């Protein structure tokens, strides 16, 4: 057994400006440290969060990140939701393809973030905004 995580509130970080992406990275790092993720897992989660927060800003027209401690009864981890009320993603399969960008990025944000986390869930449709939930568990 591991010591039970203290009850945590959701840390809501608005994403409306460039430097908010930096704030999301820092808040996710803090949460990952608290959940005792290894250094490599912290780095993977923060990198995924950076990619997704930038997408929320650039493609979602702004939104928010919700960061919380996760606990499945066996393991601790960190869960982060990225939500916006932007245009949504019409062709999700295309958007998840390595190298695909509708802007001038490298097209690695969505596909790369999915590889870097343990759970990746995306809820989106044209005109309905985008909500992405990622979870990384401590090993």
């Amino acid at each position, binding site marked *: 057994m591991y010591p039970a995580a203290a009850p945590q509130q959701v840390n809501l970080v608005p994403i409306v400006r*460039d*430097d908010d*992406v*930096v704030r999301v*990275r*820092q808040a996710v*790092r803090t949460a990952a440290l608290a959940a005792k993720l290894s*250094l*490599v897992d*912290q*780095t*993977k989660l*923060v*990198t995924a969060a*950076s*990619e997704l927060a*930038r997408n929320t800003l650039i493609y979602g027209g702004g939104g928010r990140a919700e960061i919380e401690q996760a606990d499945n009864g066996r393991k601790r981890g960190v869960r982060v939701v990225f939500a916006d009320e932007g245009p949504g993603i019409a062709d999700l399969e295309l958007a998840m393809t*390595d190298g695909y960008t509708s802007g001038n*990025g*490298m097209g*690695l*944000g969505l*596909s*790369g973030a999915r*590889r*870097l986390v343990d759970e990746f869930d995306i809820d989106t449709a044209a005109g309905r905004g985008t909500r992405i939930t990622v979870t990384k568990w401590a090993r």
Partner: protein
Amino acid sequence: MDRVPVLKIGDILLVSIQVDMDDNTALALQDTLTERIVETSAHGVIIDITALDIVDSFIGRMLSTIASVSRVLDAETVVVGMRPAVAITLVELGLSLTGVRTALNVERAMELLELSRPARASSLSVVGDGLDVFDDDSPVA
């Protein structure tokens, strides 16, 4: 927006990224470095990323772009101080940092740049990917 200072040591420019940069700061650094390479006729650029705890696709692209632009301007770029956790994450993200040379630390990067110097001074040619235009400005002692 924070500015990233660029130091000049001989004909090498040294940049130590100290902050968690937002995207605009990264783009500004890219522009500043390009201007400084031209102004100073630098032959090498060393970018120290020891302080960076992540490199995402935006920073990765910045590093690749600086490397290709500097090459066109006859300067070689070496990135130093990448943390092991960052390197592991980059691979999984799918980023290959095309054209970016890396070294363990600033001293090694200096040696690397020193080694590549005779070759560049003696050739007047378009080589490899067709982007490397070497001029034969001053003979090196």
